[in-house]
């Protein structure tokens, strides 16, 4: 971390520690406190060591929570049910009370206190299991995860706690997957509710890690819901492409530099959105580039998944609206993000391929074209900006696509040998050339 950035983090952390004290002393009103806290938001992490420490504490909390769950599952019969319930609920309340005191009360051990509150929410999960045991509550298997997710969600919103948000995202995702299987006409509502409850919080907190986790959870839940609804790969692919289109559009659109909280948060989260959009689109294009996978997928063959066209179309329209808003800003530079642009174009190609007759293998051809455009965009962009990650992503993607095609189609062995050797030599050559250019570029920059 750069010294200046570290100083900024220390300043903000100190300011957030002082603000409540200034308010208590009457130096600041609530309004002024809110303005200052908004103008100098606490970074996601109050320094690298702080994150590591919190991660270790949360890991410890997870292990202890697992132990409490196992203890409950052991069904300690020697204690009466009321004592068991009182004991586990008491542990939960004790963790919350002591953790809160250390975290925000005297603030003497903020990270340990935060972890203790997280442990309280983990013990809350054990408490749900104990209540189910004691009263022989047997509902759908996912019901317990939904109840637990509610408690974690309350922690995420009320405490602005990212470990709570992560726990809520995972639990709600599991709940949504179970709910989708049993409530087919409403299957898509659960992932949308998940998105509506968690995405705004990730924006408010400007947490890239939280945004990535929520995006993954919503995408996974939507794909499972689509699969449960239609038992067709077409609906699943459509759900994935809709999510990656939105993420890629977010990654592209926030090149606009507007003032204001939402736009700044969107700009801060844009790199994560772009990365997830590119990875999701690349995964979809790679799977669909195999003709055996692609020949069964068609928009004309959605069956009971037909209604999934509506949310997918809505997501695509939302992506288009984002791009139009960015274009209207006058400062939009989409070519600064060639891979996200290629990902968005690839989504259009793949959906077009699904709309064409499946027997003629249009989808396979367009998926291969999408892979090629993604690889080319990654290599071109990284050579221009001298970024190693994008370069090797593009080279490896191109190599993987070519290798996969030669393994998929039956060709003469000598031809395979020639192509593999040529690919290997090409990768080595362009790699050496790129690394040389990278070194020269850095030397020139340093001079």
């Amino acid at each position, binding site marked *: 971390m750069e010294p200046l950035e570290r100083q900024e983090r220390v300043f903000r952390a100190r300011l957030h520690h002082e603000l409540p004290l200034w308010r208590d002393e009457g130096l600041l009103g609530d309004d002024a406190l809110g303005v200052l806290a908004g103008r100098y938001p606490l970074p996601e992490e109050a320094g690298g060591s702080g994150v590591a420490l919190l991660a270790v504490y949360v890991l410890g909390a997870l292990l202890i929570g697992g132990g409490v769950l196992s203890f409950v599952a052991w069904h300690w019969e020697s204690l009466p049910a009321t004592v068991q319930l009182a004991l586990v609920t008491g542990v939960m309340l004790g963790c919350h009370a002591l953790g809160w005191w250390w975290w925000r009360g005297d603030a003497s051990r903020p990270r340990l206190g935060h972890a203790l509150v997280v442990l309280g929410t983990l013990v809350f999960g054990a408490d749900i299991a104990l209540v189910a045991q004691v*009263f022989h509550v*047997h509902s759908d298997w996912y019901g317990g995860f939904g109840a637990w997710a509610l408690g974690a969600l309350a922690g995420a919103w009320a405490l602005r706690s990212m470990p709570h948000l992560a726990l809520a995202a995972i639990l709600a995702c599991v709940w949504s997957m179970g709910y989708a299987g049993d409530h087919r006409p409403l299957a898509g509502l659960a992932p949308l509710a998940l998105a509506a409850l968690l995405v705004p919080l990730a924006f408010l907190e400007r947490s890239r890690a939280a945004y990535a986790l929520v995006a993954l959870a919503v995408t996974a839940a939507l794909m499972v819901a689509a699969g449960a609804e239609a038992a067709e790969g077409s609906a699943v692919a459509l759900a994935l492409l809709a999510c990656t289109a939105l993420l890629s559009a977010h990654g592209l659109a926030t090149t606009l530099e507007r003032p204001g909280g939402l736009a700044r948060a969107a700009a801060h989260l844009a790199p994560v959105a772009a990365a997830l959009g590119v990875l999701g689109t690349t995964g979809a294009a790679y799977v669909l580039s195999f003709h055996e996978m692609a020949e069964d997928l068609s928009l004309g063959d959605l069956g009971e998944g037909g209604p999934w066209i509506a949310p997918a179309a809505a997501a695509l329209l939302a992506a288009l609206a984002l791009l139009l808003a960015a274009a209207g800003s006058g400062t939009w530079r989409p070519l600064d993000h060639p891979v996200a642009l290629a990902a968005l174009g690839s989504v259009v190609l793949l959906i077009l391929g699904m709309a064409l007759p499946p027997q003629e293998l249009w989808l396979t051809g367009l998926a291969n074209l999408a892979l090629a455009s993604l690889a080319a965009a990654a290599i071109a962009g990284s050579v221009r900006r001298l970024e190693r990650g994008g370069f090797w992503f593009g080279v490896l993607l191109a190599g993987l696509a070519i290798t996969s095609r030669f393994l998929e189609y039956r060709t003469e062995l000598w031809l395979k040998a020639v192509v593999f050797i040529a690919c290997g030599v090409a990768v080595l050559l362009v790699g050496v050339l790129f690394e040389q250019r990278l070194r020269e570029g850095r030397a020139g920059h340093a001079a």
Partner: protein
Amino acid sequence: MLHRDWPILAVVVVQLGVLVAVPARRVVARVHGTGVTLRTAPVDPYDVLSGYYVTLAYEVERPGDVPYPADLKRGEAIWLLVQRDEPAWRLAGVSRESPGEPLEGFVALRARWMGWRAGIEGAGRLYIPEARREEADRVLREHAGEGLVDLRVLEDGTAALVRLRVGGAVFGER
């Protein structure tokens, strides 16, 4: 204090609310419900004890002499009307609609059609303590999973499991 501590208080209120809501109907059923005894039927004689709970199925859930509504869909809600008998209550009728307030000696149970039999909601699983697992496994095997289950049932069909009685052993009573 409230101004500073409301976030954690909100979390505690929500979590305690969930803990109360999860068993609420079962607790009400245990206190105010009508006592019903049903005879169990073996689900799978080779796997009566799954981990830490017994999977229960009941005689009244299986189509027999009493006619079921036509064209039931898997997962569809139905009502089982059971009539007092000894030692266990017996099936008197099955309907898609709630039978309303049953007559004296009758109780309506909420269930779902599982494709080949009904499943009474909330009465399919009885948790067994680890210390009694071997005993439960042995007794259930000896009696091929057949026993009597005591339930408490509210007027809206909510059932709360009270105990399972098999060959002189009693499970589930806390």
